[in-house]
């Protein structure tokens, strides 16, 4: 009986994702970010440090406005499509305590183990070789964080497709990492000094950003496909808005 109650609660939690709009919007946003990461680097003509700052600035702006636009578009779509078909739900307000618990868990179970692994690798290998292998481990690390978050969210809401998406993110990260490894690792910077940006370091950062851009692009495509399939299924199950006469 308690298991059935849990299933019912999870179904309600997952209601925001019932129509696939959120995944499609987030996927579109990811592709926009990937576009900035992958295309702007090659088209920018300014010097490297300025390029990093310029791209970082553009990403911040895209994140802010992208998030705002996504929220507005989602509200509009749901108000016209989802709520007339399957009803309206007002979510619980997230309390400060819940946010703090979430942050604590992310730091304890995700960031600290990753930092620990990084520290361990620095003890085994030189800082230069760890840095030069960044294009390999960086996308894998990011994908691992996304995968854990997706799988946890999938479990919390009882959504199997989120767990599959998490697994696909991780596979994509590993694939990008392997691809960078096969291309050959960039040269390790020699005699690293604080405040001096060497050409080798710039190359490493460029390759790492390219890896991240590819990962974000693949993740965006995965999210859009998943959202679209979910949308088609939802529309098939609920072809017309609910009518009192039915």
């Amino acid at each position, binding site marked *: *009986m*308690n298991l059935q*109650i849990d299933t*019912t*609660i999870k*179904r*309600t*939690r997952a*209601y925001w994702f019932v129509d696939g709009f959120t995944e499609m919007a987030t996927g579109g946003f990811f592709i926009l970010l990937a576009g900035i990461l992958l295309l702007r680097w090659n088209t920018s003509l300014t010097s490297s440090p300025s390029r990093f700052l310029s791209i970082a600035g553009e990403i911040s702006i895209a994140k802010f406005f992208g998030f705002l636009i996504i929220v507005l578009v989602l509200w509009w779509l749901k108000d016209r499509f989802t*709520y007339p078909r*399957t*009803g*309206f*739900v*007002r*979510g*619980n*307000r997230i309390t400060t305590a819940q946010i703090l618990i979430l942050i604590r868990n992310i730091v304890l179970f995700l960031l600290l183990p990753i930092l620990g692994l990084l520290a361990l690798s620095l003890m085994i290998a030189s800082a230069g070789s760890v840095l030069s292998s960044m294009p390999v481990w960086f996308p894998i690390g990011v994908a691992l964080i996304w995968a854990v978050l997706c799988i946890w969210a999938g479990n919390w809401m009882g959504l199997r497709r989120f767990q599959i998406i998490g697994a696909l993110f991780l596979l994509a990260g590993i694939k990008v990492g392997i691809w960078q490894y096969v291309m050959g690792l960039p040269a390790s910077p020699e005699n690293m000094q604080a405040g001096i940006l060497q050409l080798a370091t710039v190359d490493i950062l460029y390759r790492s950003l390219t890896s991240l851009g590819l990962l974000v692009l693949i993740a965006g495509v995965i999210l859009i496909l998943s959202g679209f399939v979910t949308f088609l299924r939802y529309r098939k199950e609920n072809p017309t808005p*609910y009518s009192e006469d039915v």
Partner: protein
Amino acid sequence: MKNLSSLDRVIHEPARLTLVALLSSVKSADFLFLLKESELTKGNLSVHLTRLEEAGYVEAEKTFRGKIPHTEYRLTPKGKSAFEQYRKSLGSIFNK
């Protein structure tokens, strides 16, 4: 037997239990959402919601979305506490 008789009979009814479980994880939900998720008929849903309102477990808020009347239902603090208590009682019955 004592544990079984201590179960809240208002919530114990399967349809009402589903409604309370649906409302427990959201701030509020409208009639259509409860209708679709509970798979009850409109008449049945109304009866069970009225029963929950009478027990003080659920409260309804009537508003308008545009020109269309809209009723949202939410669990009261009493309803939340009763649901938690019910789950605990249920758990203790099966654990013994």
